[in-house]
C-alpha cells in the first residue's frame, strides 16, 4: 500500500508522527507531497491541506527534511516526493536531486511534467545519475502510441490513474481499472500501482483484485487528518485507519 501525505500537514512534528505510525501500520511506500499553490491536479481536500501549509511557509526544503526524518525512522520503506514542477524548477533541479539523494529517498513523481517537457528530461537525467526514480503516470486517456513511448521511461513503478480527472472527484469504474492495468502490463514488468478515488478499504480491495501490484490512497487520508486536527491521538488513529486498508490487501 502506498499512502499520500501532504508534507508537514498539519505541521512538521505531527506529520512525521503520522507517517511513522502509517509505516508501522503497513504502508510500503510513502508519497510525500510538497505544498504549492499550483495544485491543479488536486481536489479540494488536498488543495486545502496545501493551502494550510503554504500559509505556514512550508517549502520543498522542509519536505526534504521530513523525508530525511522518515528515512531515519525506517530504512526500508519507499519514499517518493510528489508535487509540481514549479518548486523543483525553482530549487533548482540539480540541487533538488542532490538533496533528494542526501535524504536517501527513492525518487519523485511530478504531476505536471510529461516527458515532452525539457525540464522533465533534465530532472530525469539527473535522477538517473543518482539512481533515483522518476515515477511516471499513465492515464486512461493515454494513447497506445504514447504508452509505448512512456514505457521506455518507466522507473521504479508505474502510477496508473484510475480515471481522468482530479483527485477525489469521481467514483471508480472497476472494469476501466482492469483494462488500464492490463494495457500497462503489456508494456512493462515494473510494479503497477493504482491511484485516485480509493476512499475505503473496500475500494482498496476491489482495486487490488483488479490486478495491480499496489494501491495509492490519498484524499481519504488527508481528509481524515483535516477532520481530526484537534485529536491528540491523531497519528495513532491514522495508523489504525491504514491498518484497515492494509488488512484488505493481504
Amino acid at each position, binding site marked *: 500500500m502506498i499512502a499520500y501525505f501532504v508534507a508537514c500537514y498539519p505541521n512538521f512534528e505531527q506529520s512525521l508522527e503520522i507517517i511513522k505510525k502509517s509505516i508501522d501500520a503497513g504502508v510500503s511506500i510513502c508519497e510525500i507531497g510538497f505544498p504549492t499553490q499550483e495544485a*491543479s491536479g488536486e481536489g479540494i481536500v488536498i488543495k486545502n491541506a496545501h493551502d494550510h501549509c503554504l500559509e505556514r511557509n512550508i517549502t520543498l526544503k522542509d519536505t526534504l527534511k521530513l523525508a530525511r526524518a522518515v528515512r531515519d525512522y525506517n530504512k526500508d520503506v519507499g519514499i517518493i516526493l510528489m508535487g509540481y514542477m514549479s518548486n523543483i*524548477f525553482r530549487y533548482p533541479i540539480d540541487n533538488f536531486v542532490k538533496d533528494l539523494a542526501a535524504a536517501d529517498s527513492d525518487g519523485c513523481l511530478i504531476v505536471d511534467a510529461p516527458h515532452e517537457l525539457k525540464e522533465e528530461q533534465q530532472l530525469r537525467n539527473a535522477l538517473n545519475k543518482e539512481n533515483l526514480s522518476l515515477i511516471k503516470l499513465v492515464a486512461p486517456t493515454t494513447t497506445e502510441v504514447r504508452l509505448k513511448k512512456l514505457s521506455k521511461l518507466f522507473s521504479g513503478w508505474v502510477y496508473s490513474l484510475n480515471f481522468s480527472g482530479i483527485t477525489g472527484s469521481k467514483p471508480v469504474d472497476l472494469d476501466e481499472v482492469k483494462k488500464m492495468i492490463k494495457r500497462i502490463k503489456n508494456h512493462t514488468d515494473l510494479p503497477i500501482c493504482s491511484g485516485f478515488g480509493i476512499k475505503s478499504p473496500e475500494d482498496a480491495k476491489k482495486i487490488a483484485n483488479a490486478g495491480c501490484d499496489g494501491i495509492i490512497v490519498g484524499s481519504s487520508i488527508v481528509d481524515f487528518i483535516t477532520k481530526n486536527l484537534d485529536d491528540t491521538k491523531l497519528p495513532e488513529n491514522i495508523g489504525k485507519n491504514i491498518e484497515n486498508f492494509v488488512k484488505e490487501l493481504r
Partner: protein
Amino acid sequence: MSKEKIKNSIKTGSDRDGYFGEYGGIAAGENLMANLEELKKAFEDAIKDKKFLDEFAYYCKHWIGRPSPIYFAERLTKKIGGAKIYFKQEHLNHTGSHKPTNTLFQVLLAKRMGKKKIICESGAGQHWSAAAATAAKFGIPILGVMGKIDCARVNQNLIKAKHYGGKLKVVEGSLREAITAAIKEWSNNPDYYYLIGSTCSSSPFVDIVRYAQSIIGKEMREQFMELEGKLPNEIVACAGAGSNFTGSIFEFLDEPEIKKVVVEAEETAALTNGTKGIQQGMVTKFLQSDDGSKSLGGSSLGAGIMYYGISPQLAHLNDIGAIEASTASDKELLETYKLVAQNEGIGISFEPAAAITEALKRAKGKAKDYIICATACGRVEKDLDVIEKLIGKDFE
C-alpha cells in the same frame, strides 16, 4: 508583404516541443496529454483547411464586425505634441474587446472537432462574455470559471454571459485560481473543449490564440498602408497574458525597425519583474515566491491585465530583444481614461489605458511623421461603476 521565406525568421509558432526558445512547452498532467495532442493535430489540420479559414473570416466580418478600424487620435496628438498617435479600435468588435476573435476561432475549432461542450476561465470577464456569446451563437453549452475578486468588479460581463446561456462557476481568488480550476474541470471532463482566453498555458494553446489574434496586426498593416502609405514606427499594446499584444505585433516580428512595446500593469508585471518558472502549464516568467510555491503581485484596476504570468512567446521575444516591456500604474490608467474620453470621445476600459499611457509618453517630442499605434482593446462599460466610484467627482 514579402512572401519569401525570411532567414532566421522569428515570426514563427512554437517549436516541435511547444517551446519558444527556453519558454513554453507542456507542463500538464498525463491525463490531459491526449487532449493536447488531439488539439494540436486538430489545430494544424484546421489552419490548412481553406473552408475552415473562410468560415472564420466570414464570422469575423459579419458577427464580430471585423476589420476594426485604425483611428488617428488627432486631438491627443496635438495635445501631446510629437508623434502621430493612432488607435487600433479593437473595442468596436462585438462584445467590446479583442477577445471574440479568439473565442470565435476556438469555438469553430471545437465544432470541427465535434466537441459538445466548452469550458473556459476568465479574469476580467471579457473572455467569459465573449466565449459565452460565441458558444450561444453556435449552440454549444459552456461552463465558465472565474475568481470571486474579479467577479465583483465586472458584473456586467457576468450578467451578459448568463443571458447568453453560459453557466458560471465562481472560485476563490482571481484569474490564477480560475485557470487552475478550469483546468481541473477539463481534467474531469476530457471530452470537453477547453477554450483558453489568452496566449498562455501549455502548447498548443499559445499558438492557437496567437494565430487567431494575429488578424489584428494583419489588419493594421493593410490599414496603415492604405491610410498613411507606411507602417507605424511603434506598436504599443497592453498584456495580461499577452493575446492582445501578440496579436498586434506578430505580423511585424520580422520587421525589427518597428518597435514593439508591451505594457503590463505595474502591480502584476511578470515580464518586467518576474522570474522564470513552471506553472499553469508552461515555462515562462512569473511573479512568484523564490521557491515557486506561491504567486505574487498586487491588484490593478485593469482586471484584464492583472495576470501574474506572461505568454512564453513574449518572455522569449523579450529575452532576444525583439520587444520592449513597460508598465503603467493605476493612477496613470485613470488619467489616460479621462484624457481619451475628453479628447477623442472614446470610452476605453482600463486595459488599453495602459497601452495608451505608454504611447503618450513615447509620442512626446517625436517627429511629426513618426507614428505610434496603440491597440484600444476594450470599451469602458465593464469598468464604469468602478470609475464612478473612484473618480466620479472629478468629472462634475
